[in-house]
C-alpha cells in the first residue's frame, strides 16, 4: 500500500471491512471470504463489465452494481447475494447457456471451463425454459497453432482485449450489434488470413473452449508407437516451472525431475533440454552482437527467439528486419543439431529421428513449420506440443506426476548452464547474453552474474553495462504493445540502445500462450522466481562455460558464427503483408 493511500471502510454482507481506496467490490469481498462470480473479468485485463454476472446490491440504491468495475466508497453497504441478485445472476447464466452448445464431454476445456464451473456453482440446471439458439459456426483449425471454435464463444471480450490492447495485433475484434454481435476476425476471415501472430494469449484468457491450441498429441503418440522411429524430446526452460500447475503443485514449483521422468515413462527414447541449445543460442547471438558492435553493424540488435514476435515484426515492421539477430531460436537450433550433431554421434539415421519439443508457446508450432527450418536436411523439429498438451499426455498415460521419482536429462544435449534456464522469463536472454558477452569482450571474469535491472514483469526494463570502457545500453521488453513502442522509438531514431530483448508474451515464456489455463501475473511471478532460484543453485551459470556446448563446438561446429554454425544455426526473415 502506498503511504498516501487512504483506507475505506465498508460493510459487505454484514461484515465490516477496511480496504485501500480504489479497491473494487470484487476484491474487497474476497477479504471477507466471499467469492463473487465473474466471467468477463480477468485480473490482468482492463475491466469491461459486460457479462454482468458479478452484480451486487447496494443498500439504498435501486440499481445493481457490477462488483468488478465498482470501487468501494466510505460507508457503502454491499449485499453480494440477495435473492434478487441471485435470480439476476442465474438468469444471465441461463441466457448464455441458451446460446451455448453445452457439448462439454467432447470439449478440450472440459473440467477446466469457467462457464461449466459457474453453472455447477450456481446450480443452474438446464431448465429449457428459454428459447435455444445455438449458432453452428465453422471451426477454424487450419493454421496449425490456434483453433477458434466460435460456436462456443460467450462474447466475454477477454480475447479481443488481449489481442487489441495488450498485444496490439488486432486479429480478433467485435463486430455487428444485437443478436449479430460477434467476437470475430476482420470480415470473418480465418486466423491464417489475418495479422494473427499465433502468440496464443487469447487461448490463455478464454474462459471456455472457443480458443485453444491445435492439439498435436496424437502425432506424438503415433511416433512413439512406431518401432522404427527414434523419438527424442526437448523441453523449453519455462515448462519445468509451469507443468506442476496442472497437477496441483504450487505455482512456480521447479519440477524438472518429475517432468523428465514423465517424459521417459511416456516413451521418449531420449529426453533432452532446450536449455542446452539456449546456451548455444547465446554463443551465436552473443558473438553476433560483438560482431555488430565492432563492425558497425545494424544496431540495436534485437533478439529473435520468440516466434510470435518474429511474425509481428515481419508483419507490422518489415523495414526493421535487419535489426533482428539472425540466430535461430533455441528450439530450432536444437532441431538442426539433433538431426546432424546428435545423429552423427549416436550413429542414427536422421531420417528415423522424430524431433519433438515441449514448449510454453503456440507460435512455436508455426516456427517449426516455417519452410526454411530444414537446414539439417530434414524437418528440424517435427512436432511441437504445448505445456497443456504435455499435461494431457501425462494424464492419458495415467502417470501420477508428483509421485514420479525425479530423473535427469540425457547426455549430451541435456547439460545446461544457469544462463539457459532463465531464457524462460523476460530479461533472461538479455542477462544470459551479458554474462557471456562481458567475458568474451573484456577477457575478464564477471563476478556479479545477476543483472537484476532486467528482471521482473515490467513491460520495459533498461540497463547499461560497461564493457571495459565501452558502455552498452540495453532494453528488455515483453508484450507486443511494448515491442511496438520500442520499435517506433528505434524507427524514429529516439532510442540509443545497442541490444534489445523482445518477448512476445507478457512476462516472457513463463506467461506463454501454451502455458496452463489460469496463468495470471501472480503465477508468472512465482515461475520467474522458480527459474532464478534454479539458476542461482547451478555451478555453471554462463553459456560459454557449459562443457557440453564447448565440446560440441570443438567436435562438430567449429567456431561460433563459423561456416557450419552459419548454415545450421542462423536464418533469415520474410516481410509479410498486413491483409
Amino acid at each position, binding site marked *: 500500500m502506498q503511504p498516501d493511500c487512504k483506507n475505506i471502510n465498508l460493510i459487505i454482507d454484514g461484515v465490516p471491512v477496511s480496504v485501500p481506496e480504489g479497491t473494487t467490490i470484487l476484491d474487497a469481498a474476497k477479504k471477507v471470504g466471499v467469492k463473487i462470480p465473474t466471467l468477463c473479468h480477468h485480473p490482468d485485463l482492463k475491466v469491461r463489465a459486460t*457479462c454482468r454476472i458479478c452484480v451486487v446490491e447496494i443498500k439504498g440504491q435501486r440499481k445493481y452494481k457490477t462488483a468488478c468495475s465498482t470501487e468501494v466508497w466510505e460507508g457503502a453497504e454491499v449485499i453480494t447475494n440477495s435473492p434478487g441478485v441471485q*435470480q439476476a445472476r442465474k*438468469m444471465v447464466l441461463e441466457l448464455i447457456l441458451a446460446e451455448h452448445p453445452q457439448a462439454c464431454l467432447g470439449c478440450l476445456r472440459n473440467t477446466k471451463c469457467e462457464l461449466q464451473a459457474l453453472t455447477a456453482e450456481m446450480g443452474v440446471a438446464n431448465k429449457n425454459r*428459454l*428459447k435455444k439458439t445455438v449458432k453452428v459456426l465453422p471451426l477454424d483449425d487450419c493454421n496449425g497453432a490456434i483453433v477458434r471454435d466460435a460456436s462456443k464463444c460467450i462474447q466475454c471480450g477477454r480475447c479481443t482485449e488481449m489481442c487489441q490492447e495488450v498485444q496490439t495485433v488486432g486479429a480478433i475484434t467485435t463486430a455487428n450489434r444485437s443478436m449479430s*454481435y460477434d467476437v470475430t476476425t476482420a470480415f470473418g476471415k480465418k486466423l491464417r488470413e489475418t495479422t494473427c501472430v499465433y502468440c496464443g494469449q487469447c487461448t490463455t484468457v478464454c474462459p471456455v473452449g472457443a480458443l485453444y491450441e491445435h492439439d498435436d498429441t496424437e502425432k506424438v503418440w503415433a511416433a512413439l508407437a512406431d518401432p522404427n522411429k527414434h523419438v527424442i524430446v526437448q523441453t523449453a526452460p519455462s515448462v519445468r516451472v509451469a507443468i506442476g500447475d496442472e497437477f496441483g503443485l504450487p505455482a512456480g514449483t521447479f519440477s524438472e525431475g518429475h517432468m523428465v521422468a514423465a517424459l521417459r515413462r511416456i516413451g521418449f527414447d531420449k529426453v533432452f533440454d532446450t536449455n542446452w541449445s539456449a546456451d548455444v543460442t547465446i554463443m551465436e547471438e552473443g558473438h553476433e552482437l560483438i560482431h555488430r558492435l565492432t563492425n558497425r553493424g545494424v544496431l540495436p540488435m534485437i533478439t529473435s527467439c520468440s516466434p510470435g514476435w518474429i511474425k509481428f515484426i515481419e508483419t507490422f515492421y518489415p523495414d526493421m528486419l535487419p535489426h533482428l539477430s539472425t540466430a535461430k531460436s533455441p528450439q530450432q537450433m536444437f532441431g538442426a543439431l539433433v538431426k546432424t550433431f546428435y545423429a552423427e554421434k549416436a550413429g542414427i539415421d536422421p531420417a528415423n529421428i522424430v524431433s519433438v519439443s515441449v514448449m510454453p508457446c503456440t507460435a512455436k508450432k508455426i516456427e517449426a513449420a516455417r519452410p526454411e527450418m530444414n537446414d539439417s536436411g530434414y524437418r528440424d523439429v517435427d512436432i511441437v506440443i504445448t505445456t497443456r498438451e504435455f499435461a494431457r499426455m501425462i494424464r492419458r498415460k495415467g502417470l501420477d506426476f508428483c509421485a514420479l521419482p525425479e530423473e535427469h536429462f540425457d547426455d549430451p544435449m541435456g547439460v545446461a548452464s544457469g544462463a539457459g534456464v532463465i531464457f524462460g522469463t523476460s530479461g533472461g536472454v538479455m542477462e544470459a547474453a551479458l554474462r557471456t558477452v562481458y567475458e568474451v569482450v573484456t577477457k575478464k571474469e564477471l563476478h556479479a552474474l545477476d543483472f537484476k535491472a532486467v528482471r521482473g514483469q515490467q513491460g520495459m526494463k533498461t540497463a547499461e553495462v560497461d564493457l571495459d570502457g565501452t558502455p552498452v545500453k540495453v532494453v528488455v521488453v515483453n508484450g507486443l504493445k511494448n515491442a511496438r513502442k520500442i520499435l517506433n522509438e528505434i524507427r524514429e531514431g529516439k532510442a540509443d540502445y545497442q541490444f534489445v530483448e523482445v518477448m512476445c508474451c507478457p512476462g516472457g515464456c513463463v506467461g506463454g500462450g501454451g502455458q496452463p489455463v489460469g496463468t495470471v501475473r501472480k503465477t508468472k511471478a512465482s515461475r520467474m522466481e522458480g527459474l532464478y532460484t534454479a539458476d542461482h543453485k547451478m555451478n555453471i551459470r554462463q553459456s560459454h562455460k557449459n562443457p557440453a556446448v564447448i565440446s560440441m563446438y570443438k567436435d562438430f561446429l567449429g567456431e561460433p558464427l563459423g561456416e557450419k554454425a552459419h548454415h545450421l544455426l542462423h536464418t533469415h526473415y520474410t516481410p509479410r503483408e498486413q491483409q
Partner: protein
Amino acid sequence: MPKSLNIVSANCGKVTPGNVEEYVRAGGYESLKKALSMQPRAIVDEVVASGLRGRGGAAFSTGSKWAHLLEVRENPKYIVCNADEGEPGTFKDKLLLEKDPLCVIEGMTIAGRVFDSHDGYIYIRGEYRSIQHSFQKAIDNAVAAGYLGNNILGSGFNFHLHIMTGAGAYVCGENSALLNSIEGKVGRPRIKPPHLAEVGLFQMPTLVNNVETFACIAPILRMGGEAFHAIGTAESGGTKLVCLSGHSARRGVYEVPFGVSLRDIIFDPELGGGIAGGKELKFFHLGGLSGSIGCPAQLDTPYSYECLVRTGLSVGSGAVVVADESVCVVDYLKGVLEFFLHESCGKCIPCQKGIRQMYTIICKLSEGKATQEDMCLLKELACMVTNVSFCGLGQTSARALMSAWKHFEPEFAAHLNKQCPAGVCKL
C-alpha cells in the same frame, strides 16, 4: 397559466433559419454578448438557478453538470451537443436544428466561453442528412458575422464548431457511445466511472448536452435563471418541447410550460386537440420507447419531472405517442421490443440476449401461444434486463412492457386465452 409558450422555440418559423442578421434583430446573440462580460461562475449560477434539467431524456440537472465540469482543472475541455435524436416519437431537436440553428450554436458558444473550450462538436444523426447541410451554413454564417470562430466579437475568445455524424445507431444517443463514435470508434457505451466530465472526448473533460438543453441557455441568460425557473414548477424549470404523434388529432411539436396536465397536452385544442377521428384514448407513451406507458386515469397528472415520476411515468425526450382504442397493447409492445432488439449494441449479455428472449415471448403472446410460465419468465427477464444491463438502453428497454402490463393486465390475460380484444393479433 398559459398552456403553450414560445420561449425556446420563439424564433422557429419567424426568423429565416441560419440568417444571423434576422436572428440578431430578434434578440439573438444578446446572451452571448452578456456572457462574454460575465465570469464563468456567474453564468453557471444562472444555469443552476434556472432549474434546467437535461432535455435529452435523462433529466440530469444541467446546473450541476456545468458546476461539476467547472471544478475540473484539466484542459482542453470539449463541448458536445447530442443531436442524435433517435428516440422514436421524438422530433423536437429536428425542429430546433432546422428552424433555429443559431440558438443552438449560441448556447454551445456560451458553454464554450464558460469552460474556456475552443472546440465544440455537434453530433447530428445520420438520418438528418439535409439538416447537416443547413446547419453547416448556419455555422458558416455565424463565423462570417464574427459570432463564432476566432476572436468572437473582439473578445479574444475562440470557439470552433464541428459537425459530426453517425450511421444511424440508436445507442449512439447514449453520451459515451456518442463520444466513441465521434472518435471514430465503434459506437458502444463506455464503462463509467470515469465520468465524461473527467474523461470524455479524446480522453479530455467534456460537456455533453442535448440540442434543446443548449437552446435553453440563451433564453436563460436573457431572462435570468430565476425567471426561467418561475415558468415551470418547483423541480422542473422552464418549458418543454413536446412531440405529439400517433393518433393525436394535431401531431407536432409544442412548447409547454412545466405544470400543464397531460390532459391539456393531449386534448387542448391549442395543443394535441384530442384523438384523431373522434376515437377514444387508450394509452399514451411518454418520453420515447424507453419511457413508460400511461392510461387515461393518469391524464390529470401535471407534466413535470417530479409529478410524472410519482405516477411511474417520465418526461424523457418529450415524446407523447397517443394510441386510440384500435391499438392492441400486446401488438404495440411487440414493436417496442423489436426496436430494442434491433438497436442493442450487443456488448452486454442481459441486453443482447435478454431482449431477444423477451421479444420471443411477446411474439408468442401475440400469436396466442404463450403460457402462464412464459409470463412469469417474461417478468423475470424484464426485471433482470432493467437491473443488470450495462447502459440506459437495456435498463429502459422493459419500461414500456412493465408499465403497460400494470395498466392492461386483462388484455394480457385475454391473449393467454387466445383472444385479442382490439382484434389486431392473429390468434
